[in-house]
């Protein structure tokens, strides 16, 4: 249980986010990206994986506009999305800076960082030009 990988297996994601960098686990054995972080690669069960910087580009697999956020510290409406990153991994995030009616499934997005609840959160903006 003192293995450093186990002890901090998810913390690097948030530490790098504070620097404005989006990272994800990449397996050194099968070369695949995965998310959320796990102790073993979900594809080949290898423990040899490392965080690598993501391009931060991807597409909207799905999204929902939340009109009643779960508590008052969230903005409303809130656009929560399932983002498919180009490196073949996925994460929950928000789409910011646009009215919901303009979002469509498969729209291209790029990561941005906002300050929220005392830390930087990786969120996504619709790509202004083809990426």
């Amino acid at each position: 249980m003192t293995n450093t990988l186990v002890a901090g297996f998810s913390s690097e994601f948030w530490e790098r986010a504070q620097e404005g960098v989006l990272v994800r686990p990449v397996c050194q054995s099968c070369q695949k990206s995965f998310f959320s972080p796990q102790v073993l690669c979900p594809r080949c069960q290898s423990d040899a994986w490392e965080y690598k910087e993501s391009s931060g580009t991807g597409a909207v697999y799905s999204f929902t506009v939340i009109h009643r956020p779960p508590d008052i510290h969230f903005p409303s409406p809130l656009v929560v999305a399932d983002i498919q990153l180009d490196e073949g991994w996925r994460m929950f995030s928000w789409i910011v800076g646009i009215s919901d009616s303009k979002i469509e499934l498969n729209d291209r997005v790029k990561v941005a960082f906002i300050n929220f609840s005392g830390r930087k959160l990786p969120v996504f903006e619709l790509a202004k030009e083809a990426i």
Partner: protein
Amino acid sequence: MALNAAIAGIGLTKQAKFLDSTSISVCVEALKLALEDAGMQLSDIDGISARWPGPGGTSFDPGVVDWTEILGSSFRWVGDTYPQGVPGVLDAAAAISTGLCEVAVVFGGQAGVLSNSNLASYTRPVNEFVEPWGLFTAAHFALIAQVYFQRYQPDRQRLSDVAATIRNAGSINPKAVMYGRGPYRAEDITDSPLICEPFHLLDLCLATEGASAVVVTSIERAKDCPNKPVKILSGSSEWYRQQYVNPPRYDEVGKIGKDAISRTFSAAGLAATDIDLFELYDINTWEIVRQFEVMGLCEEGEGVDFIHENGIGSNQKFPTNTDGGLLSFSHTGWGGPTLKIVEAVNQLRGNATTGQVQKAETALVTGAGSGAQYFNAAILSVD
């Protein structure tokens, strides 16, 4: 190996938006009602599948063994895997069929835990990659429904009719939390506030309090009980992923339940068209439509039209969620899945409070759904 198990007793407490009680108190009340219904006593139980709600006991979750303190019993069998609803009853039926125990109880519920906040805390998973985004249960389902809506563009009025039909079954049921509300028309569903697109408030299930319980035993022993035995014919589950952690996708779990239901029908030697009663897990309106599709009654994307043409009212072709369902009757957190079993048993005995289906001999009961990324189904029947 075929199951040899039947439901011999059911118990249901008052269901309400808030009960000035404790989860343990209402669970024991439901348990005692179920035992009384089965003509049994606490000392008859030798198997248990029931989530321990605390306070007291350990922090183990679901902590079924903690019930030994209050119930004063040593058990031969404990179902600690998924101690409620369809999986809880199927596990109990398997334990009884293989001789691990003779009388098992499955129960659950909650009381004194819901505050006036607009969201029950248990619908917000604790995970560092989920919680920061403000997700809650309904939003996970919305992410899947959005893809379906975009691909198939279901008729919104017909979808709303599904919610209105089930809610109206609850409106006339004196035991339903929403009794006396309504009647609802399709327009009332879409006129209610948007919560998470595409779902409006009246598309979504309740978060309420109360408890329910069932007593499972062998078919032979159930025949000696006061009520007609309700046999547990078959069942199956699909566990794709842990619920509400990683994003659920339509392309992965949009048809979850298709295999479990197919296996359940096959093991019972029945087809969907043989079923008299459908107690489907209605966490939202669209999940009902989706389940009609995965049952194979219609093609993907045609659910609302199929339901519109055939009807899901208690006197129509596919009677569904006859007590008002999770939308209108009650949804008591982890106790919710067991409510589906209780209503199916009431119907199969001919004892439904309202909306009794004529000649109801077989029922399909389901649990969970696409956004949860797992699903389960069982068929119950009377001779």
